[in-house]
């Protein structure tokens, strides 16, 4: 936080300082109060309450019963919750590899190309579609003996007899694919913004020296994109930790509880099984992991103000 730049501007002030300061203090409070109040009441108060409840057993009736760490112990011993933890880990890894990788590939191939934005368009359309609609589209494509299976058998490729959404862990993999279909385009867009802001000179110099293709990418573009890559990966991790919509629509976490992610498990424990305490513990765990994953890019967000 101390990294924030605070430009010295007060020196040029033309105002009679003392009087102005007290006048503005009150009106500054007036402008800040609505934002602070609404965030405090509707976000921070619930945060605190959820954190407290994660140490209790509570079903919405009567008073919460103090349990200490029991909910957290259950999280790491109950088979359904362990599956959910494993699936969430798969989501995080899969999301870093597929949509970030594909997004980078599309960006590098199109950023300096004629009609590049037209070539990117097909990848961007899914981004504007909701997670629910993406789920509906892909549950249709991935029906057993559905569109994908028919295409595979038509092309003579293996896998046409897969039960895409019914077998674990295959269902988690294909849902990661569906999420990648949605997210790759926006990652490409972010990388394009980054690539277009790279200074031309070093790239031209490397080209003159005969570097091109993979070599140019590895020695010039990739190192210069590093800060942006950190942000994109950080955001992808955070988004994948919260995966809910696609899973809820495509499998509801099933069959059994085989394809649940932590966000789905939290919802089920809280609102289906009214285990508020356990649901709260899952939320707190998600928050801690999210915070750790966000630190890298938050430091960046809070430390410098970049020109846009």
């Amino acid at each position, binding site marked *: 936080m101390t990294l924030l730049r605070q430009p010295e501007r007060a020196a040029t*002030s033309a105002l009679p300082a003392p009087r102005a300061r007290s006048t503005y203090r009150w009106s500054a409070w007036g402008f800040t109060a609505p934002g602070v109040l609404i965030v405090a009441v509707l976000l921070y108060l619930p945060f605190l309450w959820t954190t407290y409840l994660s140490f209790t057993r509570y079903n919405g009736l009567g008073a919460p019963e103090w349990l200490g760490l029991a909910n957290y112990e259950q999280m790491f011993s109950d088979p359904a919750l362990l599956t959910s933890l494993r699936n969430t880990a798969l989501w995080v890894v899969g999301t870093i590899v597929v949509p970030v990788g594909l997004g980078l590939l599309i960006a590098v191939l199109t950023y300096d*190309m004629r009609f590049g934005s037209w070539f990117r368009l097909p990848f961007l359309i899914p981004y504007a579609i909701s997670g629910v609609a993406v789920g509906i589209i892909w549950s249709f494509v991935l029906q057993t003996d559905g569109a994908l299976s028919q295409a595979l058998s038509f092309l003579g490729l293996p896998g046409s007899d897969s039960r895409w959404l019914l077998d674990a862990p295959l269902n988690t993999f294909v849902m990661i694919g569906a999420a990648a279909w949605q997210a790759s385009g926006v990652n490409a867009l972010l990388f394009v913004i980054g690539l277009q802001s790279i200074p031309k000179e070093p790239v031209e110099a490397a080209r003159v020296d005969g570097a091109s293709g993979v070599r140019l990418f590895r020695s010039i573009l990739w190192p210069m994109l590093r800060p942006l890559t950190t942000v994109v990966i950080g955001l992808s991790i955070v988004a994948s930790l919260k995966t809910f919509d696609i899973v809820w629509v495509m499998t509801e976490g099933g069959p059994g509880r085989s394809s649940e992610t932590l966000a789905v498990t939290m919802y089920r424990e809280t609102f289906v099984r009214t285990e508020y305490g356990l649901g709260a513990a899952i939320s707190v765990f998600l928050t801690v992991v999210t915070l750790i994953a966000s630190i890298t890019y938050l430091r960046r967000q809070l430390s410098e103000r970049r020109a846009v």
Partner: protein
Amino acid sequence: MTRFVRPAFLGLLGLVWLTPIYLIVVNASRLPSEYSSRSVWKPAFGPDLWQNMTDAWERADLSASALSTAIYSVLGPLIAVLIGAAVGFAIVALRLPHGFFWFVLVFGGTIFPLQMILMPLFVGYAETGLYNTRLGLILVYTVIAVPFSAFVMRNFFSGIARHVFEAAVVDGATTWRIFWRIYLPMSASALVAIFILQATFIWNDLLLGLTLSQSSDVRPLMPALTALQSTYGGSAMPTVLAGGLLVSLPTVVLFLATQRIFSRGLALGQF
């Protein structure tokens, strides 16, 4: 040779990307009676698509949901952008004491996953009578958009020269007038960018709507669509697909029409 490889590869990958959309459009264009899981790849397009959309609209009672969702997606970001801009204005222009602390406090609201607020809001809303009301949903959609707005607007206002503020003070303008008549109009582009990003997010939200509403006139579109899918997913696939297509159209059109502003919004928030 390599000049053709790149466009060919990208074009092919783009076609693969559009395939699911093709499948949705053709299968939403068949009447449920003509639909067969054996012929999903066969081309189709025509008035039956409209018929299926109308059908989905009526069966899932989407008209009430669509109206509610439109209200949420307009009012939520609109109020949030103003509240966020006010916070940014107080910190940057009025030099709120300990401004950075208050900024981090407001911005911090965006770091935690929504899961942290779901259950307390559910219980709190039930006790205060906000559960399953449009007011309750407008409130929650506003608050989740406030941190991002405050973040972007603080950054944006830092770029406005100090003498703009001082000149207005010399002219005798009140702080409210400076905010409303000078700072807000100067930052119209940023306000629009935040508004579009947040409106899209709210339009597409499932989790908050699912948790905090129930009846078809309050419930947003996405929970209504999941209900349609779980009820008719087996028997009337084309209807469900048409419904999915229908509710996606507004955000896709908005996104394509404002792509430039959209990516500017992403860059403003540093994503």
